[in-house]
């Protein structure tokens, strides 16, 4: 197997995740797309780890998983708060900083 094929797959997932973050209006979906981005990064880390035959990259991937868990917890709490205050989680509605 080539390193490149994993990196390209990760790049594709990353780009799809970016699309999701930018295009979706549902707050929960935006968080899910962020998970996609983080997973793309994890694939890269593990692939490099495999090429170098060390475990450093895998450990970083584990840390990323832990951080992702924390991120989802706080992110969903924020979405929940948003829903409670505005009865909507449509990110397009939140534009109080409009110039």
């Amino acid at each position, binding site marked *: 197997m080539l390193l490149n094929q994993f990196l390209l797959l990760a790049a594709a997932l990353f780009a799809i995740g970016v699309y999701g973050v930018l295009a979706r*209006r549902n707050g929960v979906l935006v968080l899910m797309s962020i998970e996609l981005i983080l997973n793309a990064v994890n694939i890269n880390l593990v692939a490099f780890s495999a090429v170098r035959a060390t475990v450093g990259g895998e450990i970083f991937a*584990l840390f990323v998983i832990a951080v992702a868990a924390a991120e989802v917890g706080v992110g969903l709490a924020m979405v929940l708060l948003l829903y409670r205050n505005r009865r909507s989680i449509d990110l397009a509605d939140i534009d109080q900083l409009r110039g």
Partner: protein
Amino acid sequence: MTVLAALQGFDSLMSGDTVVAQNIAFGILALVMIVAALRMVTTSNVVHAALYLVIVLAGVSGIFILLGAEFVGVTQVLVYIGAIVVLFLFGIMLTRGALGEDEEADTEKRRMAVLVGVLVLVVTGGAVLDSFGDAAVNRAAPSLTAEIGDTIFSQYIVPFEAVSVLLLAALIGAIVVARKD
């Protein structure tokens, strides 16, 4: 030109040197993941999106196992599919942004997002092809879980402790943000 040269490097995938079965497995996984990811960001049903996310995450786990990182792959299933997706489903349920249809994004916004996404893909893909030519993944044996454990608790002990504090902080933060008062 380097891109073309790099693409020619993929010829070795079909040669007898590399294990064809691995490449076939990779191809299937990659295809399923990309399709599922695309469906996830485009479907109008939020619950379906969460289920597509499960497919992508399972695929990532498969990729990890393919790369010999078995422990990370198993952790991926446990933490992501077991916990995070369930959390998402709870989030969807509690916000009840209609269990069915999600309002579509306006076309202008979607066009912008496609543009940025393609830009990201082109730049990262180009950079990857440019830099890593035909480096091959030829790990002799899967990495040992014991080795990961040893390394975390010796070399990476401080980041490990930091992550544990971060998780605690996130826990408290989530409670503070979401509680009713």
